[in-house]
């Protein structure tokens, strides 16, 4: 049975290698970016799997996974990468392992290569970053290295794809041999664990390095004795170990980027620029999405008329889809910028700069990138915490990620700010938004440090807190690969959060439409429009949602809200972006020619407590709502990911309870504090 599957199945090539060696760029070249992401069963680590592009004429699957330094993992992402190499539950053990090796840092990379070879894998070494090696004035003999390692070695420029043919020739050769090989070439974990073995391995690698690296501008097809001679001259020509010097340009730029003063300035300016550009670039696109869906909803309503299916389509489904897609522009732009910053080498420096302050709060420099991603969406952000070695720091990072102001909050803030501040005053509006962001960052850090103080009882672990990070050479980021990364991150978001939001919009519609779907109203002497309006408000006043809303009204009253806002808030516990669309459903915003947001704004302005003249939405209650949204964890997908990533219900439950409690209390203080000072 087992033998059969191995003979018949499409060969699997796993691409592995140390971080920053061009692994994913190579994968994109081979797959033509047409890959699907698959989960490692039982976890949320995503792998990209693809068939090799047909133009390369090789029938094989390729698998990309997070980079590893050695086969002895220290962090959760490394652990899963290693498990995947040895035996992926779905794909089995890879037939070929392609290891990307940064030729400009040969010895550190060969360490992993040797572990893989010693473990019995069928290894092909791919030498990358040759341009950096040449810049140092050196070159490498792939033939020599191949002889020493007894495996195929090819040079590939993963940016241009130059040399990929050689890689595929080698792969084809290996695949043909696979059929002939018997089952007994099993892989087993066999690599030096002891200090002695590790040092012995490095001693051997250093010798290999001396044998294969030579000064550039010398033809490669020289014979062995020449190479020895040249190497001897090299010692005279270059100071010993000049090959061991990092990239010149990187060293110079680091003097500024990691400067005690200028480094900090650059760091904050970059962050500021990133966030402002996200808003400014995304705003028109978001408006466009908003208008498009308003138009669709309106057309559907006109086309189908005022009946249950017309209503379901326009109010339930179309506005539901719209509320999913409206924040997509922001997510795309934020992930694009993050990816460009990461590829350029800047994010690693950012992590280093911020490690000390974050470690004081119980976090880690490596929490930096996940926290930044959290401003787009908590789901990929929580997955990104897997690079954090220390369990407690990782749990704490996951814990506070929901406090990062994710883009799903933006439509909510946009609506509430538009209510508070007239649209013409764009500057004050922008400033208010910035203040909300700063407030959310500061409070998340405060909460992190408080949780860290009292963490002994629930985040009990005595792991070593560590920060060991390679600062890669600065490179010009490649837009194409950043765009790929942007789409794959955004996809996670749409796929995971999208359906939830859509279902909830429909459920919410049901709750507000039933049971009294055709209310009887006094029609005498009223126009058709008035009758529709009257029916709508009668229907909602007698709906299931109203019953639920009235039940929780005692909780909402202290915040200055009525049952309708309560219903919208209940809905947001599934996904916060539902807030805007549920307000539209509940306040029955039927179009009057304006776009949805403007008609919702006027509906909010006119909303009063039932049978009274008291306005619901005042500056005080609106500010209270904003504060509520800063803290509350209102996203089922986040809770689900948090449970998966932390391995239990403890942390997600703590997050729900803590954040809801803080949200309610702060909203209460805000509303009543403002009222006390005379703001209504």
């Amino acid at each position: 049975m087992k033998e059969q599957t191995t003979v018949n199945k499409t060969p699997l090539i796993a691409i592995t290698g140390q971080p920053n060696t061009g692994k994913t760029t190579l994968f994109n070249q081979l797959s033509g970016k047409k890959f699907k992401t698959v989960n490692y069963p039982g976890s949320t680590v995503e792998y990209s799997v693809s068939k090799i592009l047909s133009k390369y004429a090789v029938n094989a699957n390729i698998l990309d996974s997070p980079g590893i330094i050695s086969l002895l993992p220290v962090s959760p992402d490394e652990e899963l990468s290693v498990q995947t190499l040895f035996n992926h539950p779905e794909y089995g053990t890879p037939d070929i392992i392609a290891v990307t090796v940064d030729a400009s840092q040969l010895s550190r990379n060969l360490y992993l290569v040797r572990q893989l070879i010693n473990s019995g894998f069928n290894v092909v070494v791919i030498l990358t970053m040759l341009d950096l090696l040449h810049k140092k004035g050196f070159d490498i003999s792939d033939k020599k290295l191949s002889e020493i390692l007894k495996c195929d070695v090819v040079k590939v420029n993963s940016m241009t794809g130059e040399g990929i043919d050689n890689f595929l020739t080698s792969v084809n050769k290996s695949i043909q041999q696979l059929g002939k090989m018997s089952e007994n070439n099993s892989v087993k974990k066999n690599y030096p664990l002891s200090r002695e073995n590790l040092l012995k391995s490095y001693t051997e690698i250093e010798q290999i390095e001396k044998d294969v690296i030579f000064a550039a501008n010398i033809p490669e097809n020289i014979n062995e004795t020449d190479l020895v001679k040249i190497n001897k001259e090299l010692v005279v020509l270059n100071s010993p170990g000049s090959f061991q010097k990092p990239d010149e340009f990187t060293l110079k730029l680091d003097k500024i980027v990691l400067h005690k003063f200028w480094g900090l300035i650059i760091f904050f300016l970059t962050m500021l620029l990133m966030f402002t550009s996200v808003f400014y670039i995304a705003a028109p696109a978001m408006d466009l999405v908003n208008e498009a869906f308003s138009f669709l909803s309106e057309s559907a309503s006109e086309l189908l008329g005022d009946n249950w299916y017309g209503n379901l389509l326009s109010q339930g489904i179309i506005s539901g889809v719209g509320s999913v897609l409206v924040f997509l522009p922001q997510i795309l732009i934020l992930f694009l910028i993050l990816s460009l910053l990461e590829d350029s080498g800047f994010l690693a420096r950012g992590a280093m700069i911020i490690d000390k302050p974050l470690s004081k709060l119980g976090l880690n420099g490596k929490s930096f990138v996940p926290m930044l991603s959290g401003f787009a969406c908590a789901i990929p952000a929580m997955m990104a915490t897997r690079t954090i070695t220390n369990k407690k720091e990782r749990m704490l990072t996951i814990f506070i990620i929901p406090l990062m102001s994710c883009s799903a909050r933006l439509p909510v803030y946009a609506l509430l700010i538009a209510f508070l501040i007239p649209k013409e005053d764009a500057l004050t509006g922008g400033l208010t938004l910035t203040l909300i962001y700063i407030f959310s960052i500061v409070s998340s850090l405060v909460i992190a440090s408080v949780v860290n103080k009292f963490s002994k009882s629930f985040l009990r672990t005595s792991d070593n807190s560590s920060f060991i990070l390679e600062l890669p050479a600065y490179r010009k980021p490649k837009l194409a690969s950043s765009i790929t990364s942007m789409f794959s991150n955004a996809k996670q978001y749409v796929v995971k959060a999208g359906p939830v939001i859509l279902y909830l919009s429909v459920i919410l519609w049901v709750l507000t439409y039933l049971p009294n779907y055709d209310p009887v109203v006094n029609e005498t002497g009223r126009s058709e429009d008035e009758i529709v309006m009257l029916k709508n408000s009668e229907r909602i006043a007698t709906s299931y949602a109203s019953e639920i809303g009235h039940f929780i009204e005692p909780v909402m009253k202290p915040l200055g809200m009525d049952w309708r806002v309560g219903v919208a808030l209940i809905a947001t516990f599934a996904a916060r972006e539902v807030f805007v669309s549920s307000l539209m459903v509940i306040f029955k915003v039927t179009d009057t020619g304006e776009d949805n947001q403007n008609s919702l704004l006027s509906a909010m302005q006119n909303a009063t407590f039932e049978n009274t003249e008291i306005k619901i939405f005042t500056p005080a209650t609106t500010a209270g709502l904003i504060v509520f949204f800063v803290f509350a964890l209102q996203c089922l997908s986040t809770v689900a990911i948090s449970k998966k990533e932390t391995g239990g219900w403890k942390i997600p439950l703590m997050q729900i309870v803590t954040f809801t409690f803080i949200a309610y209390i702060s909203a209460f203080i805000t509303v009543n504090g403002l009222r006390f000072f005379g703001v209504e």
Partner: protein
Amino acid sequence: MNKHKITDNMKTAADMKIGEKARIEDIDNSHPSSHRLMEIGFTPGQEIEMLNKTLFNDPISFSIRGSIIAIRKNEAASIKI
């Protein structure tokens, strides 16, 4: 006794100044990160150069084996020079 233990009077990578070069003598086995430090290339006999310190003098970046690696000060203190 652990022969790779670092005692107080030994100089470590954490004591280096920016631009200073040194050869690694030993790695303190008792430090929990010691194995990873060696795996990433900090092995006895290698020359390291201290490149940058950030605002709080921690973490510190070193040049090792043609790479730039940032490590915390307490991890650098396990590298005897």
